[in-house]
């Protein structure tokens, strides 16, 4: 052990200073890393911190432990005061970031000026604070492996730290004992950390939750700017379309095959005003049965196949619902209070909650094989409002190709859809806004756009021809899960289409004018993408069951636990009653006879368990060849009733074998001899000998089968 020289200052340095500075420095180096990924720390700040700490640790490793003089510390502290002010006011403009900067600054300077034992403890506390800050601000599942990593490093550090503290009066003991320096060792480290983690799981589940869980905040590049809000500008597409974030996880009773159409209707917008689509004015009503029951959406609510949907927050009240859904039931666990579990259904059949959920919401939707038609048509939906444009009307006339839209609205819509599916129209995910004449520009010049452009154009063209149409946003397609019956619907599955009023008999019919290239499919991803799917699934699971885990989940968990317990108790009671009746029958209806039979049964079971537990074990795992064959020999004899255990002496084994005659005794003697030679003589059997031993054992077994034990009384 080499400690920093302290004689010059007259202060004796703490024992194991170098080792402890390096240990706590490694923790401090690791602690703030997730802060950058959680946008709580700028990359530059993190790099400066890592560089400063890295240099300090490198210097500590090479030479004497650096120790800044007091005047430098005082000067740095004073100089940092205005930095705190400017950082909070003009720099990061965030109290959290300012505090984190201060924490990083303090950690580096504290480690560079260790004088007393207490300084080391403070450095350790600072590292712990950085770690706590990192975990509490990280919302990605990657924080879990990070926690495991830090737990492993911290456990190693603390094991040594404890020993360094205990050996403060005898530092030479540390140098002398190699086993102590190797502590904690891989096995104990892994088992201890694993045990702590295993204990942490039930603790996490049962620790009381008094507040709603804090969930992921808006992250750069992940904003959902439009698509599901009350107003949608068809010219502006949300960043969601470019995101591969999993938005919905759908678990289906029936397998969902590749190629099938999975269309989740989220929001139908009926009013077109000043170039913007808007949802119906009235927010809708609360249908009966919404509080914990099945919300009717079709003629046969609650029947048919069920799909369970886990929805991550969309920054919208709207709930995506499969086309043709008959009923919807909200999972109680998604709501802290049953009063919040209200579903509103408006005139355009938009299903929405009374609030924007901040956590993952789970609900179950039932769809029948032959979904009912949407025949509802309110006055508002009759609205045919759209831009008064001759270009549109001319385009529509050309597209309808002689079909009378008033007489055959479906045919006209089909024709228009066909136009958009053909050249020169093509799909282009260009998110740049096109200005006030975007629609005309799209139809006559650009002839390229994304789903919103196509859906909006078609709805407006139909409206210009007098056919009621509405603009619908939602999700189309998805990825069939690698394991199990589930589908992952990502941000890039967001889509827009049109619903057209095709008369009172057919009602609202769905049309999708977007060219095929722009229509996401329900597909199985290639093998190479499966891993990513698995990691996305894990992230979704983490979001749902870890980040969003709250009081309602605990209540649901306890309810299930109670149900399972009472179910098991009932089953036991039933089984007990059955056994009692059977025993009573056995005892000819007399209770005492039944009780006696039960006691006998219990005694037999106890005897069998005892016998099982006391049975000698003749395992050969890890044994050298001759010893393994010898153990098998003992096992064979034991099975025939010989009172042998694995620890029986070779002479006892030989005597037991001799009872089966000479044919058994001879091969047994050869095996015992080989065993003794190997175990006590240190000779290992060659390959040829191994083979011979196997043959000898077989010879013994066959002789054992023929022979009859001679009982020696």
């Amino acid at each position, binding site marked *: 052990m080499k400690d920093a020289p302290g004689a010059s200052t007259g202060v004796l340095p703490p024992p194991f200073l170098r080792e402890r500075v390096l240990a706590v420095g490694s923790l401090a180096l690791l602690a703030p890393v997730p802060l950058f990924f959680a946008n709580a720390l700028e990359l530059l700040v993190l790099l400066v911190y890592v560089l400063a700490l890295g240099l300090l640790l490198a210097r500590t490793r090479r030479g004497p432990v650096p120790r800044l003089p007091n005047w430098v510390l005082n000067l740095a502290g004073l100089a940092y005061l205005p930095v705190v002010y400017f950082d909070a006011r003009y720099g990061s403009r965030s109290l959290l970031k300012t505090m984190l900067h201060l924490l990083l600054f303090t950690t580096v300077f504290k480690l560079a000026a260790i004088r007393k034992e207490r300084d080391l*403890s403070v450095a*350790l*506390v600072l590292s*712990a604070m950085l770690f*706590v800050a990192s*975990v*509490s*601000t*990280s*919302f990605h599942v990657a*924080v*879990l492996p990070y*926690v495991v990593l830090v*737990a492993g490093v911290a*456990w190693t550090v*603390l*094991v040594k*730290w*404890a*020993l360094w*503290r*205990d*050996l403060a*009066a*005898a530092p030479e*003991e*540390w140098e*002398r*004992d*190699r*086993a*102590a*320096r*190797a*502590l*904690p*060792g891989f096995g*104990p480290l892994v088992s*201890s950390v694993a*045990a*702590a*983690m*295993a*204990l*942490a*799981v039930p*603790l*996490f589940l049962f*620790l*009381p*939750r*008094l*507040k*709603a*869980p*804090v969930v992921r905040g808006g992250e750069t590049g992940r904003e959902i700017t439009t698509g599901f809000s009350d107003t949608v500008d068809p010219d502006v597409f949300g960043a969601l379309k470019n995101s591969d974030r999993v938005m919905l996880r759908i678990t289906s009773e029936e397998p969902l095959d590749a190629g099938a159409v999975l269309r989740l209707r989220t929001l139908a917008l009926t009013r077109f005003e000043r170039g913007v689509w808007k949802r119906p004015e009235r927010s809708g009503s609360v249908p009966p049965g919404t509080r914990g029951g099945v919300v009717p959406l079709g003629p046969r609510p609650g029947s048919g196949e069920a799909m369970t949907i886990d929805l991550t927050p969309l920054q919208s009240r709207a709930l995506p619902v499969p086309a043709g859904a008959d009923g919807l039931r909200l999972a109680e666990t998604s709501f802290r209070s049953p009063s919040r579990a209200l579903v509103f259904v408006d005139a355009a059949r938009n299903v929405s909650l009374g609030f924007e959920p901040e956590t993952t919401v789970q609900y179950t939707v039932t769809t029948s094989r032959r979904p009912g038609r949407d025949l509802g048509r309110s006055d508002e939906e009759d609205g045919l409002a759209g831009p008064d444009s001759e270009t549109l009307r001319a385009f529509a006339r050309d597209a309808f190709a002689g079909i009378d839209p008033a007489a055959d609205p479906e045919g006209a819509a089909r024709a228009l859809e066909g136009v958009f599916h053909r050249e020169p129209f093509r799909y282009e995910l260009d998110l740049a806004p096109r200005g006030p004449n975007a629609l005309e520009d799209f139809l006559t010049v650009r002839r390229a756009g994304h789903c919103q452009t196509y859906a909006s154009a078609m709805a407006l063209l139909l409206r210009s021809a007098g056919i009621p149409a509405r603009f619908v946003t939602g999700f189309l397609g998805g990825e069939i899960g690698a394991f199990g019956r589930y589908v992952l619907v990502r941000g890039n599955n967001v889509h827009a289409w049109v619903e057209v009023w095709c008369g009172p008999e057919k009602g609202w019919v769905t049309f999708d004018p977007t060219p095929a290239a722009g229509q996401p499919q329900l597909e199985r991803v290639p093998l190479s993408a499966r891993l990513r799917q698995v990691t996305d699934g894990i992230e979704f699971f983490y979001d749902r069951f*870890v*980040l969003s*885990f*709250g009081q309602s989940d605990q209540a649901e968990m306890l309810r299930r636990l109670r149900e399972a317990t009472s179910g098991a108790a009932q089953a036991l009671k039933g089984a007990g009653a059955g056994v009692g009746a059977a025993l009573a029958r056995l005892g000819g209806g007399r209770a005492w006879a039944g009780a006696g039979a039960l006691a006998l049964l219990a005694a037999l079971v106890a005897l069998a368990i005892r016998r099982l537990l006391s049975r000698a074990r003749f395992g050969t795992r890890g044994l050298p060849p001759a010893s393994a064959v010898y153990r098998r020999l003992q096992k064979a004899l034991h099975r025939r009733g010989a009172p042998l255990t694995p620890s029986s002496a070779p002479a006892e084994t030989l005597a037991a074998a001799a009872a089966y005659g000479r044919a058994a005794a001879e091969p047994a003697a050869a095996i015992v001899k080989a065993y003794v030679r190997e175990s006590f003589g240190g000779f290992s059997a060659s390959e040829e000998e191994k083979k011979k031993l196997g043959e000898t054992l077989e010879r013994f077994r066959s002789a054992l089968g023929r022979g009859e034990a001679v009982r020696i009384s």
Partner: protein
Amino acid sequence: MTLRSRLKKLADPGILVRVTNLGLGFILLTLVVAVAATNTGNNGLYILVSLFLGALVVSGVVSRRNVEKLSVELEGPPELYAGIPSRFTLRVTNGGRLPRRAVLVKISGAAAPLLFGRVGPGETASRGVDLVFPKRGLRSLESLLVYSGYPIGLFRKGRVHPLTEERLVYPAPAIVHSIPPDPRQAEGGDPRSFLRGRGPEIRNLRDAGFGDDPRDVHWPQTARQGKFIVKERASEEGRDALVALDVARPPGAPSSWDAAFERSVSEAAGLALQLLARGNRTGLLLGDALVPPGAGPAHRRGLLRALALVGPTDRPAAPRALPASVAVFRAGPKGRAA
């Protein structure tokens, strides 16, 4: 193991538990994070609280297991001298099924603990340790404290192993440079020139002659040389020596007298050992108590024992008549006189 014995083991009062400063800090941190988690609903903090609590439990269980079924024994040399380091052997035996790690043993009175980095199941690890007993007399080590902060130092758990055995610490023998010469060495300092006699000491070996006592045959040499060899014994005359220690404490003696007395005990021990080494049958006169002159290892231990236990008395010793053949060497706080 029965349930009763398990419960008894759990409530074992023999295990000492101490929450360390690090442990207190850790518990405080856990509490702070728990309060923050409850107040914010941040599940990241709940993860940390759960992990910290899990670590606390694991640390508690492992630290307890680490000091269970450990037996410890301390074996010392047969002779201990005050103020002189004596080599002891400390043995720690692990009677458990799992290895014990980072076990520390502190011998009462010792400043620093001894570390046993790893003691495997069923193994015994031993360490040599030099112990110094500052004072003579019957001394006990009181106890051995076996403890460990393993795994992460949140708790320090241990067990005290009391040592009931008392050890007799002999006075440190002072080297006496000016012992009067042995009158028997007048023949030139050769020990063989001692007068012949029937003492236990062998003066010489020689070929057997007529009239020699058969009990004097030296059988090993006889066998080696193929002829009868006999031992020629030295006379015991003039060999008796007595070390007289003045143990009477004068009335009103200053406190420095005690230190001088201890020095004189050391001198007496040194004198007695040197006389024995010179071949004198040596005895002790400690005030009124007399240890008659003798020789041999058992007598040597007897002398040292008497000197280890001697203490000052308030009354002066009664005059005692000693044979003229006995050489008397005096030692005492006032000084030594032959």
